[in-house]
């Protein structure tokens, strides 16, 4: 078995993704069938955000990948040799 930090990081990733999945499932699939005066609606943002927030997350992810690529390419550029 993996030890120490590996186990903690791995299990916290699993837990985080389970929580995210459950919250998103209730938000997108369960809430439309629940009456609008039910208490459950208090724990969830308006439904437009269920589209906007993943959109923002995707943009941030792409920006990070792009920034990483730029940094790596910049560090490894070599000036052309002049014969």
């Amino acid at each position, binding site marked *: 078995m993996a030890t120490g930090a*590996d186990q903690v990081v791995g299990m916290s990733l699993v837990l985080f993704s*389970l929580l995210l999945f459950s919250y998103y499932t209730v938000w997108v*699939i369960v809430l*439309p069938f629940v009456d609008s005066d039910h208490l459950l609606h208090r724990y969830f943002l308006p439904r437009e955000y269920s589209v906007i927030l993943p959109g923002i997350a995707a943009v941030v992810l792409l920006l990070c990948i792009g920034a990483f690529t730029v940094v790596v390419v910049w560090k490894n550029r070599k000036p052309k040799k002049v014969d």
Partner: protein
Amino acid sequence: MTKLLQWLLGVSLLGIIWAVIAFDLLELSVPGTYREVAWSMPLYLLVSFGCYSLATVGYRVATFNDCDEAARELQEQIKEAKEDLRKKGLKI
């Protein structure tokens, strides 16, 4: 039929079914809430696939066995390789 064609066929079939339900293209009078849920299906499936990938990576990180011997052997090989390359003129 190639795998690509099979995948494209499957994806377009699902896409057509989704569009017909979500945008009421055939006037099937599906109730409003069902149409709303159907409309958000592609995004929901994408998010759940992301969650599944994250969970799989996390679980495999947590359960991968430590291989002390292989780790030591790898460090040895890295040292040897660095020495070798240094002799040949590469600066690390």
